């Protein structure tokens, strides 16, 4: 149909005469890039951009139904999940898209760092990229708040508690964050404004700058050991490389970006179909306190760090560490803007990346099963293993009941069930003498509260007698060496001989 094609071209010409955008866009797409930049390692930035577009689109679609009020937000998510056709799928895609976006942004950042791509003249591209990472995390946090459920409610409480620790202006910042005296309607609406207007607007503008700089400065050439970046020569060398080996970005290099982006999108869709949407968990009703709040995946590592910091260090670390961390990321290209790009010549960089990745991974893993949290139902739900009650005296069995009733299991596991906050008790008597156990139970210490007020003498005796029978696979009991010396003339008297 040549007539149709002709008419199409005419239409294009009509717009092009007025807009004048087509020619520069085509030129931009076809601009020459060094051949070695066409790599499967250079696909993460474009994938992150595609994911951003997906998030904007699904976000707008969710906003068609979402109700921004503290009393109805949770219900509107239930409505989306169960009553709106394919509402659950849109929520799932938006939620998984968010997780994928954080992951891809992090991988992109790690790759850029490892390839030295932040060096001259791309320092500002990196600095803006750091801003994009923070904005992406900001989207994740505010998005988690909009899923106005129990985790969101108490997550806001955690956020407010962190903010309240800022010296002098802490209280003022909490008020600004909550928009009122408590976590309520005004809190949700301000996080909605952040999630839907402020952060995405800034994010899109900064992505525009980021991409503009990539186009203007060229894609980072593949690093080679010995090819050193110098401010005086780099631009000329890069131009020569482009002239010598240049290929048009579209289509010769861009096809890899497009295929990877498609694979990522398919993964998001697959996760959405298989695993469904995130939450909402319980209603945002603070009077339902039977809950163990947990942040979303991206923030689990912070949640874990907060469990392990000693109380005296917590506030300083909370505010000094992010400043140092973000400051270091921002200063990195300004300080290390020249020199070797190849990872084999930058062992410290490789080591740093490995340490950071392992640290984040370990803390995230810990955050998935929170060994520091007491298991609130363990004392009623996890029985004492039958083997631990065999051949025990009535007093010792009474002690097992005390162990259950006094909620020791919430923090201590027996037979593999129970809390992980304190040590497992299966072999406690091989590590502590009876006297030590009594002292520990009554006075507490280390990380254990004192139970002196919660146990009467007979309960204490029974409990300790039972604990003294727990010696794993018949390990030898712990012995008080000093007593042994003092009583060396007598035969050591231990109450455990019957076992």
């Amino acid at each position, binding site marked *: 149909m040549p007539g149709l094609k002709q008419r199409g071209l005419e239409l294009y010409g009509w717009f092009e005469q007025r807009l004048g955008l087509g020619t520069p866009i085509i030129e931009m797409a076809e601009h020459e890039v060094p051949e070695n930049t066409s790599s499967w390692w250079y696909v993460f930035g474009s994938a992150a951009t595609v994911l951003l577009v997906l998030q904007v689109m699904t976000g707008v679609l969710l906003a068609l139904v979402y109700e921004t009020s*503290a*009393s*109805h937000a949770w219900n509107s998510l239930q409505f989306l999940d169960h009553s709106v056709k394919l509402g659950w799928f849109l929520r799932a895609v938006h939620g998984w898209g968010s997780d994928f976006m954080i992951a891809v942004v992090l991988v992109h950042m790690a790759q850029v760092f490892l390839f030295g791509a932040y060096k001259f003249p791309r320092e500002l591209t990196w600095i803006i990229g750091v801003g994009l990472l923070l904005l992406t995390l900001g989207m994740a946090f505010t998005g988690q708040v909009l899923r106005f459920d129990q985790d969101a*409610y*108490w997550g806001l*409480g*955690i956020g*407010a*508690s962190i*903010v*309240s620790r*800022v010296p002098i202006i*802490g*209280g*003022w*910042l*909490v*008020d*600004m964050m*909550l*928009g*009122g*005296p*408590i976590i*309520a*309607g*005004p809190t949700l609406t301000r996080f909605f404004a952040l999630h839907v207007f402020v952060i995405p607007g800034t994010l899109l503008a900064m992505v525009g700058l980021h991409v503009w700089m990539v186009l203007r400065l060229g894609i980072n050439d593949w690093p080679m050991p010995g090819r050193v970046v110098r401010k005086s020569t780099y631009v000329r060398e890069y131009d020569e490389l482009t002239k010598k080996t240049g290929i048009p970005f579209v289509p010769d290099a861009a096809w890899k970006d497009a295929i990877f982006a498609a694979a990522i999108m398919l993964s998001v869709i697959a996760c959405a179909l298989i695993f469904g949407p995130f939450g909402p968990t319980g209603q*945002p*009703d*603070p*009077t339902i*306190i039977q*809950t*163990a*709040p947990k942040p979303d995946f991206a923030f689990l590592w912070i*949640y874990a760090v907060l*469990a392990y910091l000693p*109380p005296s260090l*917590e506030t300083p670390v909370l505010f000094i560490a992010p400043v140092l961390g973000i400051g270091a990321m921002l200063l990195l290209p300004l300080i290390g803007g020249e020199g070797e790009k190849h990872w084999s010549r930058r062992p410290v960089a490789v080591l740093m990346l490995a340490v950071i990745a392992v640290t984040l991974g370990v803390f995230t893993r810990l955050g998935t099963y929170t060994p*520091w*949290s*007491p298991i*609130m139902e363990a004392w009623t739900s996890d029985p004492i293993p039958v083997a631990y009650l065999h051949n025990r005296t009535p007093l010792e069995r009474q002690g097992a009941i005390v162990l259950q*009733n*006094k909620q020791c299991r*919430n923090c201590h596991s027996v037979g593999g069930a129970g809390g992980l*906050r*304190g*040590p497992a008790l299966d072999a406690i008597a091989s590590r502590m003498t009876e006297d*030590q156990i009594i*002292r520990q139970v009554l*006075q*507490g*210490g*280390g*990380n254990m*509260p*004192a139970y002196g*007020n*919660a146990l009467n003498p007979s309960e204490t005796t029974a409990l300790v007698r039972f604990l003294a029978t727990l010696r794993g696979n018949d390990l030898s009991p712990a012995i008080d060496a000093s007593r042994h010396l003092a009583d060396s003339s007598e035969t050591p008297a231990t109450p455990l001989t019957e076992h």
Partner: protein
Amino acid sequence: MDPMEQNSQGEQPVRAEPDSVRSAKHSRRAFLFKLSLAVNGAVGAVLAVPIIGYLLGPAMKKGSSYNSWISLGSLSDFPEGETRLVNYRNPVTTSWDGQTGDIPCWVRRVSGTTFQVFAINCAHLGCPVRWFAQSKLFLCPCHGGAYYADGARASGPPERGLFEYEHKVSGDTLMISAGKMPTLANQARVDTPLTQIDGTDATKRLMALERPEPRCGSCQG
């Protein structure tokens, strides 16, 4: 011919002005432009005052102005020696706050008219603490903060005891002063519990225990 070109030809005599006149005109226009920038700056500043005032509104209110005395119920609801969960409607709410305006707190009736009213929020990061009557402990589900019956810190990451509400017994009713979510910013940083029962003793004992023990959490004493 393009109308724009026609125009520029029509203005031909203007171009014939001597350079001195043109530069005088230019400097006048440049001045007017700068003046317009200044005017817009002033308008912006005028506009900024209400905008910033609006934004800072929630933070400008005095914390105590949110608080008011509310009833938690009659004394007979609280058996002596027990600690009970009580919900109250926050005195400051909007009609669209829904369930988020209902706030729980722990009421401990020590004896007679001696009460302690604890906030639900852990002093570490604000998660809801739960009372375990058998072990006489408050436990936090988030990071395992633990408190004794009198609210004193027992173990874990909190740096102080539970937050307490001011309370009073008026006639047969237990009243608390509530309205604002308690955080470290509006409750004194390291505050001893308002009501000292066995708290002093426990705190001293803890201090004595903690000082010589720079141990890891899982180490045994």
